[in-house]
């Protein structure tokens, strides 16, 4: 029984409308052309660094 507040239906409508699921945002395209990146697989950190 909807007594007292005539806005109840209105509120229900609003909530129904405003709480529709919203997907997370798309992420940007950050992949550069892979081929360019992996041209020279140069190790930045050599495990066998010659430090005496």
């Amino acid at each position, binding site marked *: 029984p909807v*007594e*007292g*507040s005539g*806005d*109840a239906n*209105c*509120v229900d409508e*609003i*909530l129904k409308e*405003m*709480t*529709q699921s*919203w*997907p997370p*945002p*798309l992420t*940007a*395209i950050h*992949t550069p*052309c*892979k*081929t360019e990146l992996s041209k020279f697989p140069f190790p930045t950190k050599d495990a066998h660094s010659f430090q005496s």
Partner: protein
Amino acid sequence: VQSSESSSKTEMPDYVVKYTPLVSVDQRQSYKDDFNGEYDEYRQLHARVESITRRFTQLDALCRKLVPGTKEHQKVQEEVLKEYKKMKQHNPNYHEEKQRCEYLHNKLAHIKRLIADFDQRRAQSWC
């Protein structure tokens, strides 16, 4: 309204027609430029809709916890109306913006998928 295209086309959004599977690196760059060109607008719209949705979802959850007819419940209901009014004032074009955002979401996702497909195909052929 001018866009009264034949109903058979309704399942084919314009970006699907425009952005076909990639065949060249140049094309990849141009697709990516298009993506980036609209990405900022998309993120802004998305963030706005997200924060509004979050606010109402909170109120909705609160409403469900309270017993209808009680003072607390009524208070939250009034809060919902107040929020809604406020939202209408600050974002009179909320619904258009939301629609635009959904459109951009689908369009950018489509472009992104084509680029990912292209990258994958290329990676495979180079192995």
